[in-house]
């Protein structure tokens, strides 16, 4: 457990939520602002490097994003097939051109950077610290705690879903979503039991929060501001660098 805790305190996990948010804005901003494939590819490389630095193994990073990778592949193929202008690389029953390949790669890379950097943000930022940051920024604490509570429910729903699926298996219930009838059955057999569990849990948590004076006063103790660390400097430095790169790439007409 101690080893796990140390892993959590590396790289961007040490940086404040504010610095992580600035970095996320930089990463997304550069792929939106710059049409350059090289810049987008470099940004994706940077995200992977930052993930590794933050203690997220590259393999598990990509495993977690496998659906995103599949979707990025589909975007690439769809784009490559739909653009007919440019020099043809393949000219048979389909026409694939250099422009189509470039456009597909550009779109897939943009999609990958946006999703992977968002995933990295979620991995790196402790929700409690993020809620504290939101409260420091002046957002009412009731809304800040909504974030924590919704994250608190993620493992709960995962566990409930597993139990309900096992209950279906024990009863020999087969749930398929290949037809309208199947979808209706899936809703009844899966969604309803999980929803019931969720509603019961919401009631308990509401009592627990109210029973600890949540909402009694307009203000609650403001969390201590986080001190500036080296990781904050690196995160903000990367963001500034990315903003500069986007500016130069746009001005220089890089493609």
């Amino acid at each position: 457990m101690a080893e796990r805790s140390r892993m959590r305190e590396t790289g961007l996990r040490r940086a404040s939520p504010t610095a992580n948010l600035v970095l996320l804005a930089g990463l997304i901003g550069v792929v939106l602002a710059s049409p350059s494939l090289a810049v987008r590819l470099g940004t994706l490389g940077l995200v992977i490097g930052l993930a590794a630095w933050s203690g997220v193994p590259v393999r598990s990073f990509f495993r977690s994003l496998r659906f995103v990778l599949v979707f990025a592949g589909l975007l690439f193929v769809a784009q490559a097939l739909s653009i007919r202008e440019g020099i043809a690389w393949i000219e048979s029953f389909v026409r694939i051109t250099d422009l189509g390949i470039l456009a597909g790669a550009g779109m897939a890379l943009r999609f990958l950077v946006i999703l992977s950097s968002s995933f990295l943000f979620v991995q790196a930022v402790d929700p409690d610290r993020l809620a504290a940051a939101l409260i420091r920024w002046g957002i009412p604490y009731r809304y800040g705690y909504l974030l924590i509570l919704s994250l608190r429910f993620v493992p709960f729903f995962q566990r409930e879903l597993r139990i309900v699926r096992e209950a279906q298996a024990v009863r020999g219930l087969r749930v398929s979503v290949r037809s309208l009838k199947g979808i209706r059955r899936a809703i009844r057999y899966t969604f309803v039991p999980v929803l019931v569990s969720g509603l019961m849990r919401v009631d308990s948590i509401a009592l627990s929060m109210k029973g600890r004076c949540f909402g009694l006063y307009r203000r609650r103790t403001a969390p201590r501001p986080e001190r500036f660390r080296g990781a904050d400097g690196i995160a903000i430095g990367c963001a500034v660098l990315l903003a500069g790169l986007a500016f130069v790439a746009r001005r220089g007409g890089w493609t």
Partner: protein
Amino acid sequence: MSSSREGEVALRGLRIHYPDRDRPAIDGLTESIDDGETVVLTGPSGCGKSTLCRTIAGFIPELIPARVGGAATVEGTSVWDADSAHIAQRVGYIQQDPDAQICTLRVEREVAFGPENLDLSLEEVQARVDTSLEAVGIGHLRGRETTDLSGGEKQRLAIASILAMRPRILLLDEPTANLDPDGAKALFDLLGRLRDAGEMTLIVAEHRIRPLLGMNPRVLVLDRGRLVRRHPRERIDPRDMGPRTDGGSARAAAPMAERSLSVARLTFGYAEPLFRDLTFDLRRGEILGVIGPNGSGKTTLLRLIAGLGMPDEGRIDRPDGVGFVFQHPHHQIFERTVMRELAVDGDPVEAGEFERWLDEGRLAGLGDVPPLSLSLGEQRRLTLLTALRRGPQLLLLDEPFIGQDRRNVEWIVGRMRAHCASGGSILLVSHDVPLIGALADRILYLGEVPRFGPPGEVFSELRAAGRSPFLPEFWEGPDG
């Protein structure tokens, strides 16, 4: 014991009636609890213990709708008039399921949650967090994620997070319901220390009160919403010690020689092995009780036997028909009506047979009712009937007695005996050690060293190993 002067908690002619219920949950209760007292509320499930706790905590009718009558005051303030968050400054309420009351993701943040709501200084919040974590003995867990904690650790965290509010009154609603015997003993020890510190009034709702008697409590016995007996600290009526089961009459007919289940050299684990080389068997007509600490793999063992997971090593020979009744009935209720729920493979039950099954489950007249609208006891009976209707040879029961009143426990035990008498066999997981001791033909203890054998033999080994919370006498006393 009711006195003319107002206590710290004063109830006069208290009446609570939930919507859509035939009778009031609390019916004309008058009582007074003094500053620094330790009071145990006991009685069968549904007797009104939880309702009384929630009333004193100020949740009724503000958060839990009900018609209320009479008066309920805490330190002179009417709970009907005050916001429950105001009452919470004086009353700390700990629910049955500790997991269901954790709001944040880290131990330290969870304890700080309450004091921060009071807008205290950061230094004061930190001081309260440190003191509360140390008071319940989990200071070493402060950096842990709340989802990583065991059931017992979660219960201690729930108490620490309430202690950090510095309440004058601490209410605990069946705090051992979800704890293993070890966790329950640790909790009783902690309550004893809090009582000795003498800084707060303790009100504990519990079924099994013998382990609490060391705290010298006053015992209030409720039944159907009424206060039926009060016991002074010195003299407790043995009838109110908790549910007892007559071992001789509860045990099923003599098991047959034919094996129903055979488990050989079973090894399974996640990061760490849960059990290694586990070997046992179950004969037809037999009940095998499985006990052990939280996290020892009891439910996992049932899942493996049901075929819901693959063992790492070893062999399980199971019969063709296996029924599995989960801990929480709502996980296994899928259909729109009780009748459809009882149907096997989607085929409606024939009318005569259907009526017989409904009668059997004391569910007569409820065939067209949505199952999720049934009470917890009715849902439990329905899920057990649904499993039995499929004619399983082996029945797996995971904590079937939690939250069940005496009548339901007797009904479940009756069905178990009938199943065994007809040649079926049962694997029963439960934290209720006395009931397991009374029901099971053999016991499997999953713990640091697994043990398997007749109850007398296993209990004797556990006694020698100093595992007193896993012995029936810890809960019911040596006088049986």
